[in-house]
């Protein structure tokens, strides 16, 4: 039952938030935070059972193969922990960020609904409910991206919705075909089956569009028009991880995919990582740079997962964690800078380290983690991904990714340099509110702590990886 509550509390609770907002803003805010952190706490409670092998599950039988199945296996618990933790911090950050805009009730409802359906997605053991939750996240993010409601914002929101929904529909075709072949949507039953290449390709279209990978990635930088906590939620912590999660869920833990895909996916990921890194070096809009960085880093996750060997998969999983924390921190620091300078163009900033030192240092910490500098967490995930790829014999692809990692250093430093160092070319704004700074400092410390205490997540991931069926 714990797993059911982890999903239902935020999903249903989201609809109470607008009502709570009529009573008191503070009540609504705290309730939103409680709902999201409840998922986190419930997922924490699920850890022992997930690791011991007695996986807690919940099942309601429905006709036509529409059984509602939730199960808290290590993969699901890991993903739920990462997204609900980062999600909680983002909700907390929103208190101060969003409090002078309109439509706050809808904002909190959509954020919590989004995180709730994310919980549903990760715990689902049925293809059809996976799809349903997938589309709920798409609708919620559509509302959230167009939050400011200017025609341009709405256009970009439509773009992201159309691209991801297109991908999802293509994926749905594959799901229906799977039902036609095996007569069930239940992933526990489907485990170990071999999928035809066409279906893998169709599902991959959905995955790549959701995880903003080439050639379906351009909606992600455009979605930077959203409020910063939303971009953090969408681009860093949760939405883009859906694709990589489903990749792991379907192609590592459920179906067997052929050798061809173990090479094809890294190639796509490599091109994506390089092209996005190049764009990040040219762009001048702060949030677009970080968004392109996400596209680039997602490539690393795909590489790790697609290697199919334990080191690579474990690296990919750790990458999800490290990137979620660090990139969330980067977006939130960008949010502080954006809100206080009323500017997103990095060529019109500079010298901000003198007025917002904590934000600057937090940015640097998170950037170090994304770059993969020890002792920050990103180091381990980056090394393990590369090591897995080399083990899989993909030397050329590994070299490409090393170039990508190098460009990561360049664009993050370019940004840090232009925003925080040197002469002030724009307004020298004051530090953000205490609550917002607390959130980014927390994420910065987490970036460092996740590296120093790496053995805990690594233990978790090791047990998870030992259950992967598709590993060669």
């Amino acid at each position: 039952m714990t797993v059911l509550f982890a999903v239902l509390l935020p999903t249903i609770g989201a609809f109470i938030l607008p009502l709570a907002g009529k009573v008191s803003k503070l009540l609504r805010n705290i309730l939103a935070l409680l709902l999201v952190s409840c998922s986190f706490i419930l997922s924490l409670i699920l850890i022992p059972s997930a690791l011991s092998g007695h996986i807690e599950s919940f099942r309601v039988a429905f006709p036509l193969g529409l059984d509602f199945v939730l199960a808290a296996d290590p993969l699901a618990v890991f993903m739920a922990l990462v997204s609900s933790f980062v999600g909680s911090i983002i909700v907390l950050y929103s208190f101060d960020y969003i409090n002078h805009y309109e439509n706050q009730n809808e904002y909190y409802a959509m954020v919590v609904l989004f995180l709730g359906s994310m919980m549903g997605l990760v715990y689902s053991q049925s293809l059809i409910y996976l799809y349903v939750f997938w589309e709920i996240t798409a609708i919620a993010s559509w509302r959230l991206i167009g939050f400011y409601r200017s025609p341009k914002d709405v256009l970009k929101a439509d773009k992201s919705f159309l691209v991801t929904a297109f991908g999802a529909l293509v994926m749905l075709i594959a799901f229906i075909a799977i039902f036609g072949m095996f007569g069930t949507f239940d992933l526990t039953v489907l485990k170990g089956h071999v999928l035809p290449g066409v279906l893998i390709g169709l599902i991959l279209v959905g995955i790549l569009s959701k995880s903003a990978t080439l050639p379906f990635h351009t909606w992600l930088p455009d979605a930077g028009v959203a409020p910063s906590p939303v971009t953090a939620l969408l681009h860093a912590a949760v939405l883009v991880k859906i694709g990589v999660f489903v990749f792991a869920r379907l192609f590592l833990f459920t179906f067997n995919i052929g050798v061809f895909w173990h090479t094809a996916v890294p190639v796509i990921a490599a091109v994506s990582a390089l092209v996005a890194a190049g764009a990040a070096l040219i762009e001048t809009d702060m949030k677009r740079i970080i968004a392109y960085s996400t596209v680039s880093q997602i490539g690393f996750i795909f590489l790790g997962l697609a290697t199919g060997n334990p080191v690579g998969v474990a690296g990919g999983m750790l990458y999800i964690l490290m990137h979620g924390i660090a990139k969330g921190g980067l977006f939130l620091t960008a949010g502080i800078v954006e809100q206080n300078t009323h500017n997103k163009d990095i060529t019109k900033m500079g010298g901000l380290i003198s007025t917002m030192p904590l934000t600057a240092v937090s940015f640097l910490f998170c950037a170090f983690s994304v770059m993969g500098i020890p002792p920050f967490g990103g180091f381990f995930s980056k090394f393990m991904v590369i090591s897995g790829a080399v083990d899989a014999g993909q030397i050329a692809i590994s070299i490409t990714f090393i170039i990508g990692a190098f460009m990561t250093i360049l664009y993050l430093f370019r940004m840090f340099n232009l925003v925080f160092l040197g002469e002030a070319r724009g307004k020298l704004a004051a530090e953000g509110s205490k609550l917002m700074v607390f959130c980014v400092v927390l994420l910065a410390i987490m970036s460092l702590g996740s590296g120093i205490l790496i053995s805990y997540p690594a233990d978790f991931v090791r047990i998870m990886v030992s259950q992967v069926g598709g590993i060669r």
Partner: protein
Amino acid sequence: MIIAIILLPLIAGLISLMVPDRLKGVKEGIALFSTIIGLIIAALLFKQNIMFTIPWLGFGIDLSFRLYHFSAFILLAIAGFGAAISLYSVAFMWGKEKLNQFYAYFLLTVAFANGAVLANNLILMLFFWEGLLLTLFGMIIIGKKEAFKTAIKAFVIVGITDLCLMLGIALTGSLADTFTMSMISLPTSGLGALAFVLLMIGAIAKAGSMPFHSWIPDAALDAPLPFMAIMPAAIEKLLGIYFLTRISLDLFRLNPGSKISLLLMTIGALTILLAVMMALIQKDYKRLLSYHAISQVGYMILGIGTMVPAGIVGGLFHMINNALYKSCLFLSGGSVEKQTGTTDLSKLGGLGKQMPITFICFIVAAVSISGVPPFNGFFSKEMIYDGALERGWIFYLAAVLGSFFTAASFLKLGHAAYFGKSETANKTKEASWAILLPMIVIAGLCVLFGVYNPLPLHALIQPVLGAKLEGRDFAGLPTNAIIVLITLVVLAAAVLNHWFGVRRTGKGIGAADHIHYAPGLSQTYDLAEKRYFDPYDIGMKIANWLAKLLNAVDKAIDWIYEKLTVGVTFAFTSAIRWSHSGNVSTYVVWSLAGAAVAIIMVLIR
């Protein structure tokens, strides 16, 4: 004990980061105390053999440490420099800003360096090794207000080489099926060669070899001086050459005459010559030294690259000698900077009388680096010459030419700073004892390691080679009399050259002008001073060009969404709209035509 030598400076560093600037003397006390204790521990650990493993991440990534003669030797050297330079820093940095950060980065550097040396697992080593990036960045950025540009430059250069190292380690681990260093022994063929080159890039870049050098001269001007004495002059050289030796002797089975050996020797020879040519024309005390910090690495790489015993022993001996005299030289520069407020050679002069102890230490270090007998640099250079000559006269020629320019540039530096006249000279006093003591100790070691070279060679260096030494002993006087004779002739030529230059311009600082402004060289020097040859700037141009290309690809893909898809959709809908004209008779015709098609299809079946 092993863990203590890593944790002690680490914890001390973190504590001093938290000490507020108000409490004067606390950070200094912590730094001094922890480095001296570190030196004692390192001395106690010397000659011990310890190896142990603690599980960490799994996947072959363990906390595996190994103390044996080589790591104990480097450990002792790091601890020695750490203690000397922390004493120096107390006096030199006193009263400056951001001291808590300085001491924190300083102690963390020592901790990470100790960790990297002791690690017996390649990934653990990489963890500490790459961690040095942070302290490097931090130490430079606290220097001047504009120092962040240099800090970023250093970070980017060292960062990319660390990424190469990361790939190399992944590849090595994959080939050897283990990350435990003491269990790896790979051939350098096929992928093994690639792995070696990647590891080598990491090693020589840490040591500061060309083409990964160009941040060092910039940092010489921007970073606090003790940073130069501890990082590029001592710890980075020790680490880089330590790892280069490890991969060349232990991790890979390298042969003399192999292409990789040739590659190493070429890099070494080019680094010697190009960097020393740049050093010759510098007009700033610290910047001149920084180019020598690069040039001297060339000797070590050349020596180890020869893959013959004389060369390897010489390379390692040169590593420790260079760390001694180079940090002594930087410290003398700091002493001058502290007392006169400048390191610009055109403003300095006549300091020999006012600062006699600094001057003597400078002379000892300068003659050591120039390879004058019986100082330590002479003996290590002779061995490298010996090894280089065994592999090809061209490498020997490069090394000897390098020595000529080294001697010439130190004659120029010494003349310009300590002889002659300047406005400030008479008012200048000798530095305080805390600044002088480290210099005196280090200069003393330069003499000791030369006059009594069996001490370092027998106790520190020759055990590293073990069986590869082939039973030879390089202690005592050089065996090849002809090489020694040539060395002496070259040194004499350098003195003559200096005399000529000074007579021509009348000033010590102009001693190299006849080379600087020689036809052909003059234009090349101009371009080099304008950074046309800076690999960093060239690399940045390439990266920028690549980024533009990739960005164009990205924007082309976006065009498909923004323009093509939208265009096609509108074209399609407008075509459909055209057919919905509202004219009933048209609709009737369409319907009849459709029905006709349907009927025909049914009939055909």
